[in-house]
């Protein structure tokens, strides 16, 4: 503990010395582990979609959640984000229990998801799409939008400014005044991520962000995600493309038939017998 490395590390992937690990448990724990899932279980009628799943996501990392089709990734995702209420188990975010909260409450705590199929609001411009996202806007209160228009206006200018900056970051600012319905598939994916960012999240859950994306755009998206990770955002990415996750995430969680098969660094996972069997024996 003589060197103050434990606090500011942004790359906690290389688990080396036990001393530091024990030191970070306890109070610093919450700061390091924004998302913690324990004993999660969800059944649909007779089907057990998720069975006793548990894992942690460390702050400032990209963590991958992989597994063959039907492994329970989406269901896990939905249990975390409040779309489904788990039958049992606990989801903790930033140290508080968020199990069973409404999706909007989860999002308002800074845990924000994107959708596998980008959900652009086609009747609105890209800029308007962006402006929906910021939370606790003054103008979302009815009386303010009728009576306190100056307050609303002032905030609206700030939000427009932020929206432009974010669009600029994603290199889609030239599309700001375009109707979102006219965007290409790839541009929609970028908009989806840009919009999620405007909610001021701590952590982003991305559901198959690379599905149906061409290699060029995939490269671009990955670059943006890496940039954001460096800025301190935490990512949990569901993906079935194993190679992509292996190359980009510092930690990989493997699900199989509702269980967590294993978790670890890409190298550890790649060499795991069970994983090889699940992927080669089950699907693919």
């Amino acid at each position, binding site marked *: 503990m003589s060197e103050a490395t434990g606090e500011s590390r942004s790359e906690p992937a290389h688990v080396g010395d036990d001393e530091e690990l024990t030191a970070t448990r306890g109070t610093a724990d919450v700061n390091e582990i924004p998302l913690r899932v324990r004993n999660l279980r969800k059944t649909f009628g007779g089907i057990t979609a998720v069975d006793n799943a548990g894992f942690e996501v460390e702050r400032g990392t990209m963590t991958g959640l992989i597994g063959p089709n039907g492994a329970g990734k989406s269901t896990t995702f939905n249990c975390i*984000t409040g*779309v489904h209420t788990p039958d049992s188990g606990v989801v903790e975010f930033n140290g508080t229990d968020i199990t069973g909260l*409404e*999706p*909007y409450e989860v*999002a*308002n705590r800074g845990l*924000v*998801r*994107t*959708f596998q199929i980008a*959900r652009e*609001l*086609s*009747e*609105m*411009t890209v*800029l*308007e799409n962006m*402006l*929906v*996202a910021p*939370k606790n*806007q*003054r*103008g*979302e*209160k*009815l009386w*303010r*939008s*009728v009576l306190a*228009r100056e307050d*609303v*206006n002032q905030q*609206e*200018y700030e*939000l*427009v*400014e932020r929206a*432009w900056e974010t669009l600029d970051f994603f290199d889609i*600012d*030239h599309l*700001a*005044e375009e109707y979102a319905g006219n965007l290409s598939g790839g541009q929609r994916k970028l908009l989806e991520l840009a*919009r*999620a960012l405007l*909610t001021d999240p701590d952590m982003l859950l991305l559901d198959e962000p690379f599905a149906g994306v061409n290699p060029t755009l995939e490269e671009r998206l990955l670059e943006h995600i890496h940039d954001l990770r460096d800025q301190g955002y935490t990512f949990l990415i569901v993906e079935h493309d194993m190679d992509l996750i292996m190359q980009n995430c510092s930690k990989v969680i493997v699900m199989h038939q509702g269980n967590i098969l294993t978790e670890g660094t890409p190298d550890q996972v790649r060499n795991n017998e069970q994983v090889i069997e699940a992927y080669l024996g089950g699907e693919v």
Partner: protein
Amino acid sequence: MSESQSDGAGLTERLDRLRVEPGNLGVSILDLVAVGVFFLFFLMLVAVGVLSLNYGMYLLGLAGMYGFMIVGLNIQWGYAGLINFSVIAFWGIGAYAAALLTSPGSPHDLLLSPVIALVVAIVAAAIVAVLIGIPTLRLRADYLAIASLGFAEVIRLLFLNEREWTAGSRGISGAPELFEWLPVEPAVRLLSTTASVGTARNTVVILGLLFIGYVLVRRIHRSPWGRVIRTIRADEDLAKALGKNTYMMKMQAFVIGCVLMAVAGWFYMYAFEYLDPGELEPLQTFYVWVALILGGTGSDRGSIVGAVTIVAILEGTRFLNEIDLVVALFEAIPGIALNVSAVRLLLVGLLIILVIRFRPQGILPPKEELIWPGAAPDDSRSQERQATREQRGVDE
């Protein structure tokens, strides 16, 4: 930006300039011009004797009343995607509030002021809306549709059967003058010596209230609230994922819409001075839906256009049997008699088919006018950005 613009684009541009809104009212110069032309046309019809002034004012009042219902339904269906089949029930709550509290024919003999009745109508409609919203708005849209369909019938039967309270099918007649202090008499006398001052006053009241309501509704429609409500209609899961309490916001939209419908009903009692449960037939709800779809779902201007259109259809068809051509047409087909109400429905059906075929979004669909003024793209900052963007384009 392309330099070569056709004449068509020039016209759009000129029209765009007219969309400037004086005084933050959410009403553009173009709107005001359109309303002005409409009133001129109206006065012309009166001048050439097609309409009597009294009947004309009555029609305007009727359009104002439908305007309230259509604007209310537009907030629910057009903004938020809520399917409300009990428009006429909320209208009835307002109408019965006015009749029971202020009419000399009321079984309660209260003779209160119309203003009190208006407040009661609004509060009652809001409470009932909340009670219907609580169990249905968390569920999919169809649950509200079914619940509201049943509720409309419950309300009708309630007013029909609770005779001691509502006078039942006997109805309630008579109503006090609405806002007698309004100085409309001199203006009316200017136009005509025989015109009814009461009708004129009623018309001024409902159109005045509609204007105020319209301006307020425009504000909320284009506000960040409206932006979220439109998001909910397009994709509620997305709104939730972005942290919006969609249940609360749908509730607000539903309550506002129902309150506007109740205001329409309240007005009816003063315009017609008679009310019985026969007015609460589901057909009325259908007409309001038709008007909204014709005018342009989601469009505020469209709601007003829809109101004028539906009144033109409903009242216009009353005179079908006075038009020689129509009468001759029906006489030419053996075995079919001219039944005005059937022809009216036929015409409404035809109009819906025509609009859906040729203008599926309605006569005046909503578009760019929805953006909150602060976020409108034509501000100077946007031009700055455009400039820097072009510069960057040159650099690269």
